[in-house]
């Protein structure tokens, strides 16, 4: 009798320990991924830059070397311009990179994904992009003041069709200073 009680107790303890362990770990203690008072900015875009160089006319010798049915007089490079992307927060540059097009011929789109943790609050965001190696300076730029509450996410993307940056998230005042194209500085 005594051993039966002893055994049952022992088994009870063993089972309790087991479910205690599983129950305590799934889910277990909270994990802090983002410190209090911080917000998130995700700078992410995917875009094909302009051709890396202007099209040019073939010389007569070049044309002569080609098969007759291939004799097109203008050649345009397949390779795309690398993107130059810069993000400044409150006039401090926090991201500045040259993004290479994908593909062995560098004829694909270039892309970036950057997640930044920044102090929450009002922030002056300035982002600019150069996507054409043939022209000096940045072609696209947007400057905007955003208000980010703690843990807010601001997504900065680029819409190639509209030729403009897209801001999403936080509380954005009505659009102010976005301007596509041409803005060489």
């Amino acid at each position, binding site marked *: 009798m005594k051993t039966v009680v002893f055994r049952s107790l*022992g088994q009870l303890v063993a*089972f309790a320990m087991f479910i205690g362990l599983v*129950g305590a770990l*799934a889910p277990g203690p909270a994990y802090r991924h983002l410190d209090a008072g911080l917000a998130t900015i995700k700078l*992410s875009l995917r875009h094909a830059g302009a051709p890396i160089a202007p099209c040019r006319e073939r010389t007569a010798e070049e044309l002569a070397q080609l098969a007759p049915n291939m004799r097109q007089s203008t050649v345009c490079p397949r390779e795309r311009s690398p993107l130059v992307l810069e993000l400044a927060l409150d006039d401090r540059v926090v991201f500045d990179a040259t993004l290479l097009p994908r593909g062995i011929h560098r004829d694909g789109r270039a892309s970036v994904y950057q997640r930044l943790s920044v102090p929450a609050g009002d922030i002056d965001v300035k982002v600019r992009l150069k996507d054409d190696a043939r022209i000096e300076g940045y072609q696209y730029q947007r400057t905007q003041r955003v208000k980010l509450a703690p*843990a807010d996410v601001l997504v900065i993307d680029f819409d190639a069709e509209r030729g403009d940056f897209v801001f999403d998230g936080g509380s954005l005042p009505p659009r102010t200073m976005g301007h596509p194209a041409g803005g060489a500085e």
Partner: protein
Amino acid sequence: MLSALAAGLHRVEGLFDRAFEARFNPWYQLGALGFFFFWVATVSGVYLFIFFDTAIVGAFESVERITHEQWYLGGVMRSLHRYASGAMVVTVTLHLIREFVLGRFRGVRWFSWLSGVPLLWLLFAAGIGGYWLVWDRLAQFIAVATSEWIDWLPMFGDTLARNFLTDRSVSDRLFSLLVYLHIAIPLFLLIGMFIHVKRMKLARTTPARRLLYGTLAALVVLSIVRPAVSAGPADLSTTVAIVELDWLYLNTYPLLDSLGAGEVWGLLVSITTLLAVVPWLFPGEQSIEAAPAVVNPANCNGCGWCFKDCPYEAITMTPHSYKPELRQAVVDPDLCTACGICEGSCPSATPFRNVAELVSGIEMPAFPLDRLRLETERALAASNVPVVFVFGCERAFAVTGIESTDVRCLSLPCIGMLPPSFADYVARQDRVAGVLVTGCPPADCYFRKGSEWTEQRFKGDRMPHLRTLAGKSKVRVLWAAAHEGEVLERVLRTMRTAREDAA
């Protein structure tokens, strides 16, 4: 180092032996428990899937309904699904540690070890994927972190993380893919589990009944006391700043923040590689002890007993090499663990045969039958008073430690190597008061089946039977693990007293 760890492990197991009896001791069936938890997760998962909305907009709500509107069934099923999966991580981890500590990865067992390693990846992938489907705040955390983590790999670029920029960018197609993966990955896990145990005869894939019911009851209790719930709907417009993690499955995620994606990949690949090469890192002593069994066709009549008994499916039966109409055993050396269990099963393995050199149908090069008889006789001859004779096993309680003038011992690589006729051979001698046969408890035989088959042979349930003119009461079978010496000595004392009473 391993032997110190093994001693510690045996201590803990000893405690469980006392509470559960060896037959129900969970430590001896961790792999089987892994299978059991897999089935619990499968059954509960199928139930959840019936009510689950596989579209991204409906997923969260559907899980909420399952959890709260039918808490008594759906809610319990959800909790069982989560906790059985968690329990699987616990038991598989312990299983890995145990097989390592006990050195059960050496020699041809490398296959069992190596085939276990990919199961870890599949197990974790299955669990992480499951949390993703709930599409709550935890799922969101996992989605963003995992996609950033995978995107670190050059072939992915930034392709995955861009799916989780805003709530609008999450596509139904991607979500359906995740649902599909959560079915496919466990399926691969199951296939992997079967490959893992394929080389073992009668692998234990179901826990002993009482342990099974107890474990299931414990999981149900946990599910009712602490139901699994979601963490609020996903909302990609804010970052998940603080979240309750499942530390069994999601323990790598904090490392992603502190170390970085590339480093975590490096860490996981290193750990996996290290695990994969364990059998070659710790080869153990390569001695003749590990030489595979050898068949002597002249003494093999093709009965197939060894074929039935080999715990590693290393023996096949083929037509006899020169006796027409007969079959013959053949050993695949790449599968043979050198346990010797076949030597104990062969009908021609009897010490009574009157030949100069005893040769049996199947033998271990390190411990052929002739040596077995020689050492038995030597152990007997070393004393001229009445004795109790003990046949023991090197992996179990060390019987040589209790040897004295009236207790003679012979320790074998596995007790399954002992042909029952040897017990008869010894028991017949007048000077022998009793024969004690011992080894690892059947639930945890180092070579899986040695003790179980021995018990059956001595009981008369498996060939070859124990037949003895000395009376079966003179022969006792008693199991004692390395740490269970007292039990053995107690029985030895009674056998000695019985002898004195008789005298």
